[in-house]
C-alpha cells in the first residue's frame, strides 16, 4: 500500500466530518485538492526541490488527526511565559491547528483589522475567501499543498484593511500539544490591502514529548504600498517534523521582509515562493538554521521577478554541528521584460564537524537583459586563524568557537526590524550555542 493510500481512505471515510467542522469557503476547494493530491502524491526525493528531504516518508508513520475538533486541555500559564519580553505585542495562541480564542490580548487591534480563526472568518467573509483562499497555493503544483488543502480545517487569518497601519507587532504562538502522536494541518491567510502595514512574529513550540508532524500552508497577499514583516521562529523538539509552504504575492511598491529562523527542531522543510507582480516591489528574504545532533533543516526558496524595477535581497545562513544536515535551494527568476531587476542572493554555511552535511544550490534564471543580479554560496569551517588569535588572548577554544558562530549568524539577526526581538534573539542564539536550549518543553527558556 502506498503512503498516500491511508490518507485517501481517511478522507473518503471522514469527508463529511472534516467539512462539517470547517467552513464552506474552505470546503469548496477540498475536492479539487483531493483530486490533485491523488494525482501528485506526497513529494519524494525524486523531485529536484525535495531532493534532500523526502517528505513522503514523514507521512508513513501513524499519526492521529483531530478531525472532529476535540478540545485539547492546555494550561495557559505554560504558554504565557513565552512572550518575548520587553516587546509589547498583541499575543495570540494557536493550539495545534486550532485558533485559541480563550486567551486574547487586552489591547484591541485597530478598527477593521482581523486576527483570528480562519474558520470563523471564512464563515463571515465568503467574498474575501473566494478571492484569496487557495489561490496562490495551487494544489496542482505541490503534493503537500494539495494534501494540506484537502485536510485543513482551521488556522489563522490576518486581515488588514486598506491604509491601516498596525503599530503594535502581532505575535502568534503555535503550541503543539497532544497525548498521542499527532498530525497537524494548519492554514494561514494573510491579506494586507493597499497601503496597509503590519509586523508578525510567529513562534513554534511543542509542549509534549510525542511525535508531531505539522503541515502548514501560508498565503500572503501584500497589496500596493504595503509594508509587512513576518518572523518565524521554530523552537520545537527532536520529535517534531515541520513542512511549511509559504506563498507570497507582492503588488507595486510593497516592501516585505520574511525571516525564518530554525533554532531548535527535529526535521524541517520550509518552502517560500515570492512573486513580485507589481513594479517597485521589494522582498527581503532571510533565514538561519542552527542544527546539531541528527537535526535536519531544508529551506527551498523562489523569488519570481515578473515585472520591472523589483528588488530582492536574500540571505540564508546555517550552522551545522554533529551529524546535522542542511539544505538550501534558492532560485531567483527574472522573467522576460522584468528590466532593472536588482537581486542579491547569498547562502553561507558553517559545518562545525566533519559529519555535518550541507547541500547548497543557489540558482539564477535571467530572461531580461538590463538587470543586476548576483548569487553565491559558501560552505566552510570556522576560521582557524581567528580561533588561534582568540585563544592566544586567553579565550578558551570552546568560548572562541562560540563567539565565532555567534558572529556568523548575527548578520541574519541584524536584518530584523524589531529592536526587542533582535535583542531577544541574540540571547536565545547564545543559549542555543551553549547547549542551554536543548528542549523546548513548555517554553521554560523564555521565562
Amino acid at each position: 500500500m502506498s503512503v498516500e493510500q491511508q490518507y485517501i481512505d481517511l478522507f473518503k471515510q471522514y469527508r463529511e466530518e472534516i467539512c462539517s467542522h470547517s467552513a464552506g469557503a474552505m470546503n469548496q476547494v477540498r475536492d479539487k485538492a483531493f483530486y490533485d493530491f491523488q494525482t501528485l502524491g506526497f513529494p519524494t526525493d525524486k523531485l529536484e526541490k525535495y531532493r534532500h528531504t523526502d517528505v513522503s516518508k514523514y507521512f508513513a508513520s501513524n499519526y492521529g488527526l483531530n478531525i472532529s475538533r476535540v478540545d485539547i486541555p492546555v494550561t495557559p500559564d505554560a504558554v504565557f511565559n513565552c512572550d518575548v519580553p520587553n516587546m509589547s505585542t498583541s499575543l495570540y495562541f494557536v493550539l495545534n491547528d486550532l485558533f485559541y480564542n480563550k486567551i486574547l490580548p487586552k489591547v484591541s487591534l485597530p478598527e477593521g483589522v482581523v486576527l483570528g480563526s480562519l474558520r470563523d472568518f471564512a464563515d463571515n467573509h465568503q467574498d474575501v475567501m473566494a478571492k484569496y483562499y487557495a489561490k496562490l497555493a495551487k494544489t496542482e503544483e505541490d503534493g503537500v499543498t494539495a494534501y494540506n488543502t484537502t485536510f485543513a480545517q482551521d488556522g489563522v487569518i490576518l486581515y488588514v484593511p486598506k491604509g491601516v497601519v498596525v503599530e503594535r507587532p502581532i505575535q502568534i504562538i503555535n503550541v503543539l500539544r497532544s497525548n498521542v502522536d499527532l498530525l497537524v494541518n494548519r492554514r494561514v491567510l494573510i491579506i494586507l490591502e493597499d497601503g496597509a502595514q503590519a509586523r508578525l512574529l510567529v513562534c513554534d513550540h511543542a509542549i509534549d514529548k510525542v511525535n508531531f508532524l505539522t503541515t502548514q500552508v501560508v498565503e500572503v497577499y501584500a497589496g500596493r504600498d504595503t509594508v509587512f514583516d513576518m518572523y518565524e521562529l521554530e523552537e520545537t523538539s527532536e520529535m517534531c517534523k515541520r513542512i511549511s509552504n509559504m506563498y507570497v504575492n507582492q503588488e507595486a511598491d510593497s516592501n516585505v521582509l520574511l525571516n525564518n529562523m530554525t533554532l531548535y527542531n527535529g526535521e524541517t522543510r520550509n518552502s517560500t515562493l515570492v512573486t513580485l507582480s507589481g513594479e517597485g516591489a521589494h522582498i527581503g528574504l532571510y533565514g538561519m538554521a542552527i542544527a546539531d545532533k541528527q537535526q535536519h533543516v531544508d529551506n527551498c526558496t523562489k523569488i519570481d521577478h515578473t515585472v520591472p524595477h523589483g528588488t530582492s535581497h536574500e540571505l540564508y545562513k546555517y550552522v551545522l554541528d554533529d551529524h546535522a544536515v542542511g539544505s538550501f535551494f534558492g532560485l531567483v527568476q527574472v522573467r522576460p521584460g522584468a528590466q532593472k531587476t536588482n537581486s542579491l542572493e547569498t547562502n553561507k554555511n558553517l559545518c562545525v564537524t566533519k559529519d555535518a552535511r550541507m547541500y547548497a544550490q543557489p540558482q539564477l534564471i535571467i530572461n531580461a537583459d538590463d538587470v543586476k543580479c548576483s548569487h553565491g554560496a559558501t560552505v566552510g569551517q570556522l576560521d582557524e586563524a581567528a580561533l588561534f588569535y582568540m585563544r592566544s588572548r586567553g579565550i578558551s577554544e570552546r568560548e572562541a568557537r562560540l563567539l565565532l558562530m555567534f558572529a556568523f549568524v548575527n548578520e541574519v539577526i541584524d536584518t530584523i526590524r524589531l529592536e526587542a526581538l533582535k535583542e531577544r534573539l541574540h540571547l536565545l542564539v547564545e543559549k542555543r550555542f551553549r547547549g542551554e536550549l536543548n528542549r523546548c518543553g513548555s517554553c521554560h527558556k523564555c521565562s
Partner: protein
Amino acid sequence: MLEIKDLHASVNGKEILKGINLTIKAGEVHAIMGPNGSGKSTLSSVLVGNPAFEVTRGSVTFKGKNLLELKPEERSHEGLFLSFQYPVEIPGVSMVNFMRTAVNEKRKYHGLDPLSASQFLRLMREKRAIVDLDNRLANRSVNEGFSGGEKKRNEIFQMAMLEPVLSILDETDSGLDIDALRIVAEGVNKLKTSETSCIVITHYQRLLDYIKPDIVHVLYDGRIVKTAGPELAMELEERGYDWIKKEIGEV
C-alpha cells in the same frame, strides 16, 4: 622567567628551528634580529602554542612550568603575550565582547570574579589612552577595517588589558609610519616594569631606538648564532647580515 633549551620545531615536516637556546630574566628586554626566513616568527608562534607548528625536540620553561604542555589560552593566563605580525580580523565579534571575554577568562583562571560592566568599561578607557586608540575602533569588530597602524596599536592595547609578564612583539614595527611607531613604542615602554620582560623581534634598528634592548640576538637558519649588547643592533643596521654569515662560515 623563560628558559628555552635546544628547541627544535617544524612546520609541515620541514625543520625551521634547529636548536634554540635562550634565557630571559625578569625585567630584561631581548631583541631578536635576523634575515628573512631565519625562524624568528616560528619561534614566537611556537612559544604561544600555534598548533600549526610541531615541537620535535627541546624544552621551554616559563615561570617554572613546562610551557609546551600548556594550551594557548593557558599560556596567556600565565602571562605570555604575542603581538601578532599580522593581527587577525574577526568580523562580527566586537572588540568589547572579545576583550571582556579574554579579561574575564583570565580572572576566572586566577580565581577572581569577573569584572562588572562598569569596571570593565573603565579599564578599557584607561588602557585605550596608553596607545591613543579611538573609542570608535573599540566598538567595531576585532581588527575589521582597521588600518595597518591601527591594528598594531590594537595589539598593544590588548597587551595593556591583559598585563602579561612576558610580551613578544613580532615585527610590531612593520608597516608603521614614524608617528605610529612612536605611539606603539611609547605604549610598550609605559607598560614596562622591573618584573616584566619583552622579546622584540625586528628586522630593523629603528624600533630599538625607542625600545632599548638589554641583549641582542641574531637568529639565522634556525639557530641563535650571535648574542651581544645593544651595539650589535647598530652594527647590523650598518653592515647587514653577510658578515655574520661569513663569521659562521656559510659564505
